[in-house]
């Protein structure tokens, strides 16, 4: 799925890493528990989460993953922005809940990892 299309589907706003809006991603994983995310072997996924802190970005950094969808209108802190920019990570924020985002994107063809 094209990240720009994904952003539109969840009424999202791309807050950084906007150069990646033309990229495509095939899989998604939704979790607020980072050790669960860290079990993923692949790097081609978008993290759908409500965890708005620096560790969600550290988790993407360690995973070599580049996309985050932050739900429920959570605010991106300056520390998060800094780390996202350093690692060229796209962050999209959505006013929708995690459940609603996941539902919309699953229906639109984004694949689950498990």
């Amino acid at each position, binding site marked *: 799925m094209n990240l720009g299309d994904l952003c539109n589907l969840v009424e999202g706003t791309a807050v950084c890493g906007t150069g990646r809006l033309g990229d495509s991603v095939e899989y998604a994983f939704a979790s607020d528990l980072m*050790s669960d995310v860290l079990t993923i072997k692949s790097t081609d996924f978008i993290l759908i989460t409500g965890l708005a802190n620096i*560790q969600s970005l550290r*988790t993407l950094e360690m995973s070599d993953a580049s996309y985050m969808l932050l739900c429920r209108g959570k605010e991106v802190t300056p520390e998060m922005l800094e780390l996202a920019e350093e690692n060229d990570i796209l962050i999209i924020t959505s006013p929708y809940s995690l459940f609603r985002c996941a539902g919309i994107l699953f229906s639109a063809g984004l694949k689950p990892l498990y």
Partner: protein
Amino acid sequence: MNLEYKVEGGDFTSAGLASSQIKKILKQLNVDPAVIKRVVIALYEAEVNIVAHAYRGVIKAQIDGGGINLTLEDEGPGIPDVEMAMTPGFSTASKAVREMGFGAGMGLPNISENADDFKIDTIVGQGTTLRIGIKFR
């Protein structure tokens, strides 16, 4: 190459800094990205465990052409039952730690999964030492 980093218990802002720096170094050394991912995931889980469960600790990394050896030594409560701690899903993480995104009880099993060699030495009331070895090829 020998590297050393200090880790403070409870400091979730800095958690992951050592792992991030070691990741950059391994990249510069042109280590296979798939191997780097295994190294930094194991290291990051272990680093966060010091922050989440111990008082303070030191990370030592020894890198040569063949691989990396990591030692994470902490002063902390220790682990009373290592076998239970290694069980996926077992966690004693506090509410504060869970709010930071940890406490799934997946960290130690995930370290074991990613490491070629993994050893835990722990003394209750004193602290825990993890040894993680990963070969580059």
